[in-house]
């Protein structure tokens, strides 16, 4: 075999693996799209069809019924609003407070720094399930309603995460900028928000995106703290416990439609900010 043909064989093998990989990643989502365009009769067809087909004529037949159903489903519409409020508020709060901590951890000199770094790092791995009953008790005792309690408790994972990732980014900024601003008579806090913070804008976008995704997808706290307040449920809780409009069976067509709608904002973020998201994901785990 000449080296040119060998190269071509390698290329073909590479593309075969790429295609298999792409199908594996995408297929469950394709199946959800396919099912979301089926009526209940089509969903009950055996064997299942790879595109929506009419049970009688076997011709391709789409329906928008599931989408109409979920958009007239009050619980689902309220969940969109709830999820948006919770995810955006958590992201903003975590970014503001986390950037304070990140700046201190990454750029300032103070006693006890190693200890605080250890605490923040261990907090990024703090298991939510370990404090579930404790938080539940605090929330019921204080009588905090569900939406604010979600915003507060989501800081458990989002705040240490933003602080940790931003620490890594602040560390990379040259210390000279910080020092020369100080020599020019700027107070350290002025240096922070007038010079350093703008420089970390890309890092803030990255961390903000990941925090938003985390809060949008969170399930354990949402399920627990909205158990007595159904109108505060977020999208994951509504989708996992979907209330049916029509039938007593599990309404898979509607669930798929609702699931697709609630994933679309995330897909947009992923395709627009792919590089930033990858950078942030790996920074959280790899950078020390």
């Amino acid at each position, binding site marked *: 075999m000449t080296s040119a043909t060998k190269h071509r064989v390698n290329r073909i093998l590479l593309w075969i693996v790429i295609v298999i990989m792409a199908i594996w990643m995408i297929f469950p989502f394709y199946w959800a799209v396919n099912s979301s365009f089926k009526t209940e009769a089509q969903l009950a067809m055996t064997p299942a069809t790879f595109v929506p087909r009419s049970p009688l004529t076997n011709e391709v037949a789409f329906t928008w019924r599931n989408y109409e159903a979920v958009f007239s489903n009050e619980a689902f519409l309220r969940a969109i609003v709830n999820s948006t409020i919770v995810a955006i508020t958590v992201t903003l709060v975590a970014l503001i407070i986390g950037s304070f901590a990140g700046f201190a951890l990454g750029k300032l000199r103070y006693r006890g720094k190693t200890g605080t770094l250890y605490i923040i790092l261990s907090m990024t791995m703090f298991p939510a399930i370990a404090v579930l*009953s404790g938080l539940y008790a605090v929330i019921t005792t204080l009588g905090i309603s569900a939406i604010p309690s979600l915003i507060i408790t989501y800081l458990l994972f989002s705040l240490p995460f933003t602080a940790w990732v931003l620490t890594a980014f602040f560390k990379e900024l040259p210390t000279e900028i910080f020092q020369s601003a100080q020599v020019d008579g700027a107070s350290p806090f002025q240096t922070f928000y007038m010079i350093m913070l703008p420089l970390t804008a890309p890092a803030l976008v990255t961390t903000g995106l990941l925090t938003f995704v985390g809060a949008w997808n969170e399930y354990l706290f949402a399920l627990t703290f909205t158990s007595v307040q159904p109108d505060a449920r977020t999208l994951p809780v509504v*989708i996992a416990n979907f209330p049916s409009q029509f039938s007593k069976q599990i309404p898979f067509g509607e669930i798929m439609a609702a699931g697709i709608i609630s994933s679309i904002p995330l897909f947009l973020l992923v395709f627009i900010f792919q590089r930033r998201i990858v950078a942030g994901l790996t920074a959280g785990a790899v950078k020390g």
Partner: protein
Amino acid sequence: MAKKKEFSSDLAKQEQRLAYWLLAPTFLIMLAIAIYPLLSVFYSSFTNATFASSKPTEFVGLQNYQQLLSMTIVSVPPVLDEATGKAKIDADTGEIEYQSAVRVLPREPMRYKPVTQFNLFGTQYVLGATDPDFIRSIWDTIVFAVSTVFLELVLGMLVALIVNANFKGRGFMRALILVPWVIPTAVSSQIWAYMLQPNRTGFFNTVLWYLGLGSGEIAFLSNPALQLPSMIMIDVWKTTPFMALLLLAGLQLIPGDIYEAADVDGAGPIRSFFQLTLPLLVGTITVALVFRTLDALRVFDLFQIVLGQARYSMASFTYYQLIQNRAMGYSSASSVVIFVVLSVFAIVYMRSLGVKSND
């Protein structure tokens, strides 16, 4: 000179004060939503606290832990044939018939229920526990964590090598592999639950039936032998991309010219992977493994949504004790057990990462 020194130490003091002020909000919030609740969980794990109950809360010592973790192994005698006095053989299966496990397990002071039976050197044993659900959830969660993390490492490495190769559309591929990661677990769990339906309305039964495998009625989610493999399959799909990205970050740190050198030396791609790439990735792999293991051990969404109360992970067991049974004390005790298991792994993680305060 003296003035300058004073000035700089003033600055240092000012800097230190600022650092404490900037850290204060984060630490106060963590105190309120992590440390205080954690301490209260520890405390209530020693009580019989129950929600919405008029019964006064009492201190019960280690009783919750005893109830959660007590285990015993007892041998199960065979059923004796009255006529011959020998072990009775089941006519259908040709195997020895054993007595009911419930009868041989102790009932006082606590009642043990069977978790599993096994045969060792010809003797049948039963593993009994006072809370078989919890013991099973620990075992299942560990099996789940070890299998998913191993499979994700192997497949994630393959994915990472591919998206690190040079081809047209690589950027698009890198965005595409983020799809399983970004879909809310609640949504992907429902999609997979639907694909795993126990008849040919489900994707897997349809495909296996087309291929002539299976009856088209495989109960992936209610057959106990298939439940864990199904969970593992779903999680591997969902989390391999994340693993791949961690490994990709490590791959990109390896300078390209060492491969050129290997190429000149005539090392094939497989040899240069095992002899060059893998050793250089050891650090990344260790971090990724422990990071993922910690995540997998606290799996909740997937188990709660797909299996509900048919089979528990440690976390979903804890959730149901709290919300369904309102058993605050008991649920707290199982939280503490999870916390201890995870802390052991977390310490390993911190060690392997080696935190540095100054570079």
